[in-house]
């Protein structure tokens, strides 16, 4: 991923800054700049998500793309944030610990690197609340 492409999403990736529609109150993460319900009548502004939520579904990635090969096996999940929206993220736990309905909280982690001399990208992973 190019430097500009990663850099412009640092607030979202590091601190879970998403958006909220002032017209209908719906929260968006990943962020949307256009409310799909209110469309042009929507008033989108930034919203800082707490990052706590629960696991909706998950898997254990055993065969990954080149960028993630060194990290396998890792737990990947869809998480429903307490404010409502769902996102995809890694869970920092063993495959055996992952459960549907498990409460999680955000943790700041290294996500990947662009080769050995490229940009190292950081972002949010999730950790089980009960294990921390």
């Amino acid at each position, binding site marked *: 991923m190019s430097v500009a492409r990663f850099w412009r999403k640092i607030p979202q990736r590091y601190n879970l800054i998403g958006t909220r529609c002032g017209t209908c109150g719906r929260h968006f993460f990943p962020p949307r700049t256009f409310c799909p319900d209110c469309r042009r009548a929507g008033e989108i502004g930034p919203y800082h998500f707490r990052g706590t939520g629960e696991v909706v*579904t998950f898997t254990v990635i055993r*065969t*990954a*793309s080149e960028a993630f090969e060194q990290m396998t096996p890792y737990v990947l999940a869809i998480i429903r944030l307490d404010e409502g929206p769902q996102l995809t993220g890694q869970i920092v736990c063993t495959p055996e610990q992952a459960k549907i309905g498990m409460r999680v909280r955000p943790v700041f982690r290294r*996500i990947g690197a662009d080769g050995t001399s490229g940009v190292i*990208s950081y972002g949010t992973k999730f950790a089980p609340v009960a294990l921390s």
Partner: protein
Amino acid sequence: MRDVAVIGVGCTTFGEKWSTAFRHLFIEAGALALEDAGVQGEQVDALYVGNMSAGRFVEQEHIGALIADYAGLATTHIASTRVEAACASGGLAFRQAVIAVASGMEDIVVAAGVEKMTDVGTGASVEALAGAADREWEGFVGATFPGLYAMMAVDYMHRYPLSREDLAQVAVKNHSNGAKNPIAQFQQEITIDTVLRSSLVADPLRLFDCSPITDGAAAVVLAPLERVHEFTGTPVKVLATAQASDSIALHDRRDISTLDATVAAANRAFSKAHLTPREIDLVEVHDCFTIAEIIAIEDLGFCRKGEGGRLTREGETALGGRIPVNTSGGLKACGHPVGATGIKQVWEVVTQLRGEAGARQVDSAEIGMTHNVGGTGATVAVHILGVT
């Protein structure tokens, strides 16, 4: 709108075709289709070619022009258009061709699909395919395609009765069909044990739950129904074309275990054709992973939600069953050259409706359906075809 017919079909063999170049794959399929239709190249008004990612697989863009050129149609200055919707590129190319003929804008139109995936390594092709999902918010955090479908499987198995063996049975059935299809990438039968002993890719999905990386091309020729007597091919009528969209990311769906775009496209297609699922004699569904076939047969209306596993276990979706699914071998055994798959599905249904499917022929098949999915369900194309 005019009625539209498929008057010719052609398909290359599917597999790892090291000695065949991208452009020659297409030419082989196109020539077979024109030959089958009894159409001369100069009679073709327009060409729509489905292709997902030639830019990443063979570093070639501008596919419409390239294909027209090497088909010998550059000098007739044919209108040639590339259509892209990830793994649904072929289905959408077919739909665009149907619309062109139905509208009266064009008469003789070729719809094709082509993908050459083995000129790059597996890692690079997995990367290219990941672009069918949300690159920024799925791929960036480590999601792979098998991983996304695996999350559907985990959600599904948590909510509905579906065993690991039921999933394996989808692959066993599709390999059994593929063994009867001379163009299939895998023409070997397998057992449930073959699937259960293969390596884990993304829990619970194993290697034999996944469709392979494939080179291949398919093409079909369309004409207005009123003109089919001018050509030699046995015509098959297009009874309905439908297309629907959904969120690009799996996490934004209303329900992880339902493809709402499949439900919407199927409803539109059945309504347009004045048909119900009961009247469909065979269906080619988008089984990129075994779980995808289970979900597809439910969302298309062949059974209720949660019954896909039972239908499969009881042989209802096998050859000779109530609703034979993926008689070609599906994406699993016939292979999945992503841009070509949607056209290959039409090729299979037309072959069946003409009674030319040999060992895998469905008895007295008169109406068939195709179901082509882009990404994890963000685009779906559904077509219904019938004998004339």
